[in-house]
C-alpha cells in the first residue's frame, strides 16, 4: 500500500432502476494490495455497485475504472483482469477438482501448459493437491471454497471480488481463508469483499458502509471504532445505520 496506486476508482457512480435510485453518487478508491470491505444491509446497493465495477451493469451516471479499464467502454478487458467468487460457488459439482480448473482455464482462453503451471502453484498455496481427482460435490465445504477461489485466480487477475465468501464454513476454515486472502493482498492483489460477518470486517484494511445507495462511512476499522467509541465493527455498523435511520 506504499505507492498508493488505485486499482478501483468510482466517481459519482449512480444507478437507477426505473424511479428507484439503487446507487446514489458513490465515490471511492481502492488501492493496489488493499483489502477493502464493503458492508451494508441487504438491499443497500452493494451488489449493484459490484456488478457495475465488474462491467456487468452499465452505470446510469458517473463513472468507474477497474484495474485501469473503464466499466462503460472496456468491459471485455475488465473480465480478463478480475476474479469473482460468490457465496454460491459456481462450481461444476459433477466434475473433479482438476476438471473444474481445466474448464475455468478454458473459459479464460488459457493454454494447457499455463493452466498446468498455475494449477501447481494454487494447489500448493491452497493445499488442494490431495483432492485433485475428487468430485467437487464430495469436497468438504472449506475446500469447496478454496477450489472456487482457485477458479477465480486461475487467470492471475490483479483484482479479486469476493461476495460473502465464507458463509457457512467453520471458524477454522474461515480463518485459514482469511490467511490466504491476506497473503494474496501482500503479493499485490486488490481484494474487494462483501460480508455480513462483522468480525471479518476487521480483517480489511479499510471498509465502506453503504446505506440506501450511499456510502455513509469509509475508513480503517480501527478509526471507525475509535470515532464512534465502539469496541467492535458489529457495534459500529449497528450504531451508524441506526443513526441514519433516525435522521431520515
Amino acid at each position, binding site marked *: 500500500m506504499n505507492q498508493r496506486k488505485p486499482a478501483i476508482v468510482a466517481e459519482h457512480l449512480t444507478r437507477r432502476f426505473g424511479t428507484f435510485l439503487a446507487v446514489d453518487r458513490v465515490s471511492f478508491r481502492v488501492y493496489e494490495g488493499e483489502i477493502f470491505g464493503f458492508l*451494508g*444491509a*441487504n*438491499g*443497500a446497493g452493494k451488489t449493484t455497485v459490484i456488478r457495475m465495477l465488474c462491467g456487468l451493469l452499465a452505470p446510469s451516471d458517473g463513472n468507474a475504472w477497474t484495474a485501469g479499464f473503464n466499466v462503460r467502454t472496456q468491459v471485455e478487458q475488465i473480465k480478463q483482469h478480475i476474479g469473482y467468487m460468490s*457465496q454460491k460457488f459456481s462450481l461444476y459439482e459433477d466434475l473433479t477438482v482438476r476438471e473444474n480448473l481445466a474448464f475455468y482455464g478454458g473459459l479464460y482462453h488459457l493454454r494447457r501448459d499455463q493452466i498446468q503451471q498455475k494449477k501447481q502453484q494454487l494447489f500448493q498455496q491452497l493445499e488442494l493437491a490431495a483432492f485433485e481427482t475428487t468430485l467437487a460435490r464430495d469436497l*468438504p*465445504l472449506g475446500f469447496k471454497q478454496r477450489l472456487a477461489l482457485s477458479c477465480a485466480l486461475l487467470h492471475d487477475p490483479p483484482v479479486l471480488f469476493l461476495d*460473502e465468501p465464507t*458463509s*457457512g*464454513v*467453520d*471458524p*477454522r*476454515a474461515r*480463518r485459514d481463508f*482469511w*490467511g490466504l486472502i*491476506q*497473503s494474496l493482498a*501482500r503479493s499485490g492483489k486488490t481484494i474487494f469483499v462483501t460480508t*455480513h*460477518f*462483522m*468480525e*471479518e*470486517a*476487521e*480483517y480489511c484494511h479499510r471498509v465502506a458502509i453503504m446505506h440506501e445507495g450511499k456510502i455513509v462511512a469509509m475508513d480503517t*476499522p*480501527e478509526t471507525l471504532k475509535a470515532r464512534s467509541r465502539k469496541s467492535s*465493527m*458489529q457495534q459500529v*455498523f*449497528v450504531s451508524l*445505520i*441506526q443513526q441514519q435511520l433516525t435522521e431520515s
Partner: protein
Amino acid sequence: MMASGENTLPIIEIQQLKKRFGTITALDGIDLHIYPGEIFGLIGPDGAGKTTLIRILCTLLLPDAGRVQLLQHDVVHDVQSIRRFLGYMPQRFSLYPDLTVEQNLNFFADLFQVPPSIRQQRIQQLYHFSRLEPFKNRPTRALSGGMKQKLALSCAMIHTPKILILDEPTTGVDPLSRQEFWHILHQIREGGTTVLVSTPYMEEADQCDRVGLMYRGKLIVVDTPQRVRQRFPYPLYRVWGQDTYALREFFQNLETVHSVHLFGDALHVAFTQPPVPSDWKHWQLTSHQQIIRWQPIEASVEDVFLEMMEAHS
C-alpha cells in the same frame, strides 16, 4: 434468565439420537434436554447436523435410533399432537407471494385452526412485535427481505405454539436486522414460548440462555454462553503487530504458545503458561519490534469452538 434447573421437567428431551444418510453420519448420539422458557441456541458450521436435528424435532424426518420427546410426546408416534403446539420456521420459509401480509396470516390461521373468535386478537399481538401492521395490505412479494422474515416468523407463531423452532433465521441477514430479530425472539420468550434456534454466527451465542456447539454430528459443549467461554483452558492474549502475518509465524514458533489464530486485525495467542512482563520484553526484541501492543482477553465462544473442534478432529 428463565427457570432451567434440575427440578424443572425438560420440554424437549433427546436421548442417544442417531441419523445416517448413506455413509454419512449426520447425528452421532445426541443427548440434550431443553427446559421451558429457555432460548436455546444450536451453533455450528454448515454440515454439523443442525438442520437434521431440527427436522427430526419437527417430525419431518425419522430418527435411526434414540428417543426424542417434545412435551412428553414422541416425535415418531405423536406427530399430529406435536404439530399443534410446535411452531417451525425453516431456513427457506414459504409465504404466498401474491397474498397480502394479512391474507398470509389468515391462511396460516386456517391451517392451524386458530378459532375465529381469537384470531383478530392474535394477529394484533403479532403485529405488535413485527410492526407489520402498516403493510398489512401489501402483497408479500413487495416486502423487503427483513419484513418477509418477520412475516414468516409471525405465521409460525399464529397458533401460539409452546415451542418455537427456527433453522438459521439470521443467516445472510445484516447485523442490524439480526439484532431486531433477536429482540423479537426475546419478546416471544417473555410470552412463555420456549425457543430453539440454530445459527452459524458464533457471536449470537450471547443472545441465548444456553447454547450447544455442534460439530460433525455431535454436541461438543452444552452450557450457558458465559460458562462456555470460561471453558477455554489457556491464558489468551490479543496481540497487535506491524505485520500480523509475520507476527503469526513468530508466535507459532514459540514453545510456550498453544495456538495462534488470526482474529480480524490482530492475533489471538493462547499460551500454555501465563506470560510475564519480561517475556513480552524478550519477544519484543526477538521479533524485531514487531509487537505493537497486547492485552489479556476473555475467550470468545468462537475461540472455544476452535479449541473443541481441534480436540474432536
